[in-house]
């Protein structure tokens, strides 16, 4: 990387060029994560991709990938809201799988339920098509420093 992550995060907050953050992290690139500013905060998007399929017979996105995507949305929200300057470390994650995730574009929005000096609690929901029919929901703790 040519630029330190802290500097990148600070600059992206100013400019809103979220794609630069998504491009800086290998696993975000692997998921091809896109970040957009929605009406009520950032929306993280995971485009459809055959390499994410966990069950070709349904077909469905791998449950682990859904969990990874929820975690990614939480990390992005924490970086965006100044909770942390470096990549927060995940402490634990609990995912409820509500519906089978079809191999289509998937969205997620994270809410920081409890910001903290050292630990944050984040809730995340992922959906496809209809927002009121989430495919998965998670809550997670992150160590901020």
């Amino acid at each position, binding site marked *: 990387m040519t630029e330190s992550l802290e500097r990148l995060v600070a600059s992206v907050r100013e400019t809103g060029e979220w794609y630069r953050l998504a491009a*800086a992290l290998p*696993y975000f690139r692997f998921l091809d994560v896109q970040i957009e500013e929605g009406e009520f905060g950032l929306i993280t998007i995971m485009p459809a991709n055959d390499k994410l*399929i966990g069950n070709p017979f349904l077909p469905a996105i791998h449950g*682990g*990938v859904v969990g990874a995507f929820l975690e990614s949305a939480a990390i992005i929200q924490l970086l965006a809201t100044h909770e942390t300057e470096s990549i927060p470390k995940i402490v634990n994650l*609990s995912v409820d799988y509500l519906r089978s995730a079809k191999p289509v574009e998937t969205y997620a929005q994270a809410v920081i339920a409890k910001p903290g000096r050292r630990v944050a609690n984040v809730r995340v929901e992922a959906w496809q098509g209809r927002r009121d029919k989430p495919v998965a929901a998670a809550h997670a703790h992150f160590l901020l420093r």
Partner: protein
Amino acid sequence: MSTGNRVPFDPEAITLVVQRGIPHCGVIGIEVKDVDKTGVTMVLPYREDLVGDPRSGVLHGGAITTLIDSVSGVSVYVGLGAFAAIATLDLRIDYLRPATPHIDLLARAECYKVTRQIAFVRAIAHHGDVNDPVAHSVSTFMIDSSETKPLAAIVAEELEAERKRSGK
């Protein structure tokens, strides 16, 4: 829910079930390492493209989640003694320490309780010593979650057909 779509468990078929039935595992290099009477171990070789923090080179938690979800699901077949359609209901993971960069990550899962409809699983991700875990997880799975044929059954049938063709 009908249990008619279950087929008897065959440890020999597991590798093929994962290869053909869970394509994403193949994409990121997850393989079955060991199957015994009580559980399953899978391995995720270290990969640069799964890194979550480029400064430390530590894998993204999501890669560990995927390894644990995969091995936990497959361990349900062992606990059930059958291949059946299953779906993850929930998965909780404690990330106990960062995975060490540049070495294989293993995960062992045991399905410790099966009821008529639900399977309960615990799993540990580690670097070779289960007593020095990277992550610990508990999860639950719905059994016979779909009316469609379980993917493992489809693969088991393919395997049987191949055996017949090769005259074994």
